[in-house]
Each structure stands twice: as structure tokens, then as C-alpha cells.
């Protein structure tokens, strides 16, 4: 039945115009971002192609993707409370657990769709721009794979924050505002903690972990110059665990909030 709930969520998402508008806006922004790099490289005798642009393709657009992921999750969750379809679904026979599972499964789905869209647009431009000139060696495949996983985890982390806020607030407008402003609050909290010489704690805040996960340098091999400039002092394994832990905690808190409150 959880698979049915997930299938219904996909159906609802695909049938909704707002989804396609959001995806179109996201694609346009991605095209603008990579397009400007592509044309900038052409006019300034630079290079936008494989393999040099792979780090940018993997991580540079991820903050956008994270934000659009949040928007889509909020639209898919909070509208159900605005239209009271969340409780009607339960009256019709879905259990609260199944309804929640359907929404949770949307998180990785949305993250993958946005990331693939970004990859397809950037990748196409990079493919066009690829030439035999100015080529640098490829990074190890593991670096690219880890960067892609890190970005997906970061997107899921931010979307989980949005899910938690959405299930607590249950209204689209306020949830979007709080979720998008959350990164400001998180950054202010981190600055304050660092000011109090509690920088070690600040690094563990959800959005700080999210930002660290988006940094390509983080995934480069130890000993390379770039690795030294990575955010904070995370080892990749610990960073992944921190990201996964936040996703788990936030989904657990969302589940508790949703199950405890009447519809």
C-alpha cells in the first residue's frame, strides 16, 4: 500500500501545473547559470567542457536545486492541508502512516529529478563546449560519485527541514517563508555560536551540514591542494553521517508531529 501511496503522490505531482512551472523556472535558471559560463568561456578564450567543468556541473547549481526541492515539497505537502485532502485521503482508506510514507518518498524523487535536470542542461552545454584544448585530467571517479551523493543528501536534508516545517505549520505560504528563511536563521545561529567560541557545535547545524555537503572540494582526495580549502574540518564519511542523521532526525520529528496531531 505504501507503493500505491507513492504512486498516487507521483500522479498528483505530475498532474499539477505548479510542478511544471517550478521545473521550468528551475531549468531556465540552470540554463542561465551554465549558459553564462559557457558563453563567458567562449568569449574570454576560456573553457567550459569536460572534464574541467564537471565539478561545477555537479555542485555549482545545487543550492538552486535545494531551494526548488523545498518549494516542490511544500507545494505537495501543505496544499493537502489547505484543501483538506490530507484528511479525506485517510477517510477514504489510506492510513496516516501510508500518507506520510508517500510524502517522504517524494523527497528523494524530487531531489533526483532536479539533479538530473540540472545535469542534463549543464552536461549538454559542456558536451558542446568540449574540445581537445585546455583539458585537465579527470578527478578520480569516486570523487565525482561522492560529490553527486553529497549533493543529493544535502537536497534531501533541506527538503526534510521543509517537510518538518510544513507538517507543523500546515499552510503553504507561511511554510515556504519559514523554510526559505531558515537558512538565514541557521547562518545567524552559526555565526553567534562561533562568536561564543562554539564553532565545533555550529558546524553541526543542519544548514551548515547542508552547505558542507555542497562543497566539491570536500570530496577531493586528501593531499590535493583543493581539499585543504574544504569547508570546516569534516571527513567525508562523518559529513555523510551527519547529513543522514539530520535527514533521519527531521523525518522522525515530522512523523511524530504528523501522527500526534488531529487532522
Amino acid at each position, binding site marked *: 500500500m505504501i507503493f500505491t501511496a507513492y504512486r498516487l503522490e507521483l500522479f*498528483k505531482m505530475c498532474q499539477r501545473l505548479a510542478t511544471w512551472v517550478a521545473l521550468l523556472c528551475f531549468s531556465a535558471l540552470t540554463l542561465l547559470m551554465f549558459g553564462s559560463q559557457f558563453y563567458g568561456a567562449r568569449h574570454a578564450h576560456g573553457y567550459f567542457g569536460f572534464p574541467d567543468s564537471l565539478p561545477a556541473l555537479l555542485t555549482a547549481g545545487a543550492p538552486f536545486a535545494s531551494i526548488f526541492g523545498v518549494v516542490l515539497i511544500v507545494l505537495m505537502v501543505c496544499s493537502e492541508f489547505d*484543501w483538506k*485532502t490530507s*484528511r479525506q485521503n485517510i477517510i*477514504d*482508506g489510506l492510513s496516516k502512516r501510508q500518507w506520510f510514507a508517500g510524502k517522504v518518498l517524494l523527497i528523494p524523487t524530487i531531489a533526483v529529478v532536479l539533479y538530473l535536470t540540472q545535469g542534463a542542461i549543464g552536461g549538454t552545454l559542456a558536451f558542446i563546449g568540449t574540445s581537445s584544448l585546455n583539458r585537465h585530467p579527470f578527478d578520480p571517479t569516486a570523487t565525482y560519485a561522492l560529490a553527486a551523493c553529497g549533493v543529493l543528501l544535502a537536497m534531501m536534508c533541506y527538503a526534510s527541514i521543509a517537510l518538518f516545517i510544513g507538517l507543523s505549520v500546515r499552510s503553504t505560504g507561511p511554510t515556504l517563508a519559514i523554510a526559505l528563511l531558515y537558512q538565514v536563521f541557521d547562518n545567524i545561529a552559526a555565526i553567534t555560536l562561533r562568536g561564543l567560541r562554539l564553532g565545533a557545535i555550529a558546524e553541526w547545524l543542519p544548514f551548515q551540514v547542508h552547505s558542507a555537503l555542497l562543497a566539491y572540494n570536500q570530496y577531493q582526495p586528501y593531499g590535493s591542494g583543493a581539499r585543504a580549502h574544504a569547508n570546516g574540518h569534516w571527513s567525508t564519511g562523518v559529513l555523510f553521517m551527519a547529513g543522514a542523521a539530520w535527514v533521519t532526525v527531521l523525518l522522525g520529528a515530522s512523523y511524530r508531529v504528523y501522527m500526534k496531531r488531529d*487532522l
Partner: protein
Amino acid sequence: MSILSVAGLTKRYGKLTAVDDVTFDVHSGQVFGFLGPNGSGKTTTIGMVFGIVTPTAGHLTLFGSDGPRALAQSRRRVGGTLEQPSLYPYLTGRQNLHLVAQIKRLDDSHVAPALKAVDLLAAADRKTKGYSLGMKQRLALAAAMLGDPELLIFDEPTNGLDPEGMQEIRELILKLSRSGRTIVLCTHLLAEVERVCTHVAILKQGRLLRCGAVAELTTGAPVFRLRTDNPLTLWEAVCKYPPARQMRREHEAVYTELADSDPALLCKYLAGLGIYLAELSNQRATLEETFLRLTGSSGAADSGAAP
């Protein structure tokens, strides 16, 4: 056979008691009206039956099952709506029913007959955001009926409808009732209960005031209307008549209930005093009178002017 049994059901929100120790039974084949003014706790009670509101106290049995797991299974045999129709506005009527069919594990072959039953086949492929309120109510009813549930619960299904729309919904409910389904109908419209329901529970401020067959409530104690040329003498005589109860004067007439329910004895008594009646008639108490007597208020519920 009791399909829905509720005992001591209570819901508190902090200091506010929305539903206070409500007990009633709904039996197979009944059209059970849940009558009360707005804010009387009808929707909260039904929310608890649907499992979307957690009771603070009390016991609920559905199709003989109780306990969370068994109730969850039994709720699959229940269909219904709560408050206004809850539909996805960006989906068509057909797509909305497709979603409900999927949830109820039915294939799409059930969708078209359900749309036809509520006369929405022609508008099935239009987005529901363009539907009138009446069409939305009908679609919600169709969704509730999908899968042929044994118990149907409708919360204010005629809310906001024009008289014609109200009549259509009532006829649909009566049709469902005639097909043997058990129906619980929440409403604040007295006329709706009188026209559609076989049984009624009257709620006020979360408390159950009365529960029983509509016929019993409206024909409880007969009220007699008496009239003579001299109403003052008649009033004084009736007041002294021992079986007379709940006497009142209105214009030229005197109204009274009789403990012995025998108007012939009253006539004989009055004739003995030299009072000859110009009119003696049995006034059937309407549900509205019963409701107002029980709730002790006027205008708490609407008489529901309808065709």
C-alpha cells in the same frame, strides 16, 4: 444489528470540551441524523468515528470491532465526507475519483458508474476548480460511494446549496438508504432530518440531549389545542384540571398536554363547568418544537427552508 456504537465519547482541547460523554448506537439500515447547531460537536464526533480525531475518552465500536488495529480494518467499510467537499482542484472529476479508487484498491471501471450516479458524467473531464459547490458536493458523494461501503457518513452535505441542489442531494441520500445502506447524516437543518432521517441524535455544546426515532420525538406527548368564546374562563378551568400539563395560552387558544391522553374526559369536565368547546384538536409536535424545547433556544438551528 449495531453498526456503529459510541459510548462515553469525549474530546477536550485544553479547557474546551468539544464533545462531552456522548453515547449512541447506529443500527443497520438506519438513516441516522446528527442534529445540532454549529459548534455543537457534530463534526468532532464524526471525526473520531473516521479516525482523524483522537478521542480523549470513551469507546467506539465499528461493525463489532474495537481497538486501533481492528477499527482501522473496519473503517475500510465506511465512506464519507467531513465538512466541505475535499477535492484536488487541479484534477478533473474523473481523476479525483481515480485517486479515491486507487486508495480503496478498486480499478477504474468503478469510476464511470459513480460519476453517472451523481449525474456528473458530462463534466467528468473538467477540472474541479471550475465546478459549482453543488457539483463538488455531488462528486464528494460519488467518491464516498465508491467501493459500495456499508456505512456512509455525510457531514452537512447540503451546505451552501440552492434549494434545487439540496433536493437533489436529499433524493440521492434517500435512494442510497432504500438500497439498504446505513447512513449517518450530520446537519443543522431540522427539515433535512425530518425529511430524510429515521433516527436522530440532538447535540448541544458537545452534549447529547436526546436520541431516538424521529417519529418518537415528533409524536411524544400529544398537545391539544382548545378554543371557546371565552378564553380566560377556559384557561382558568384547564389550569384546575388535574391531568393537564405544560399549559400555555396563545391568542384565543389554550394548549395543553394531558397526563391521561384522553380528551373526552377533558370535554366532559369542561361541559360540567358550562364551557363548550368550539375547537379541540390534537397538535403534532414538530421536530423543530422538540429541538427548541430540548435546546432551550430559538434560532440555534435552522428550519432549513427547502422545497
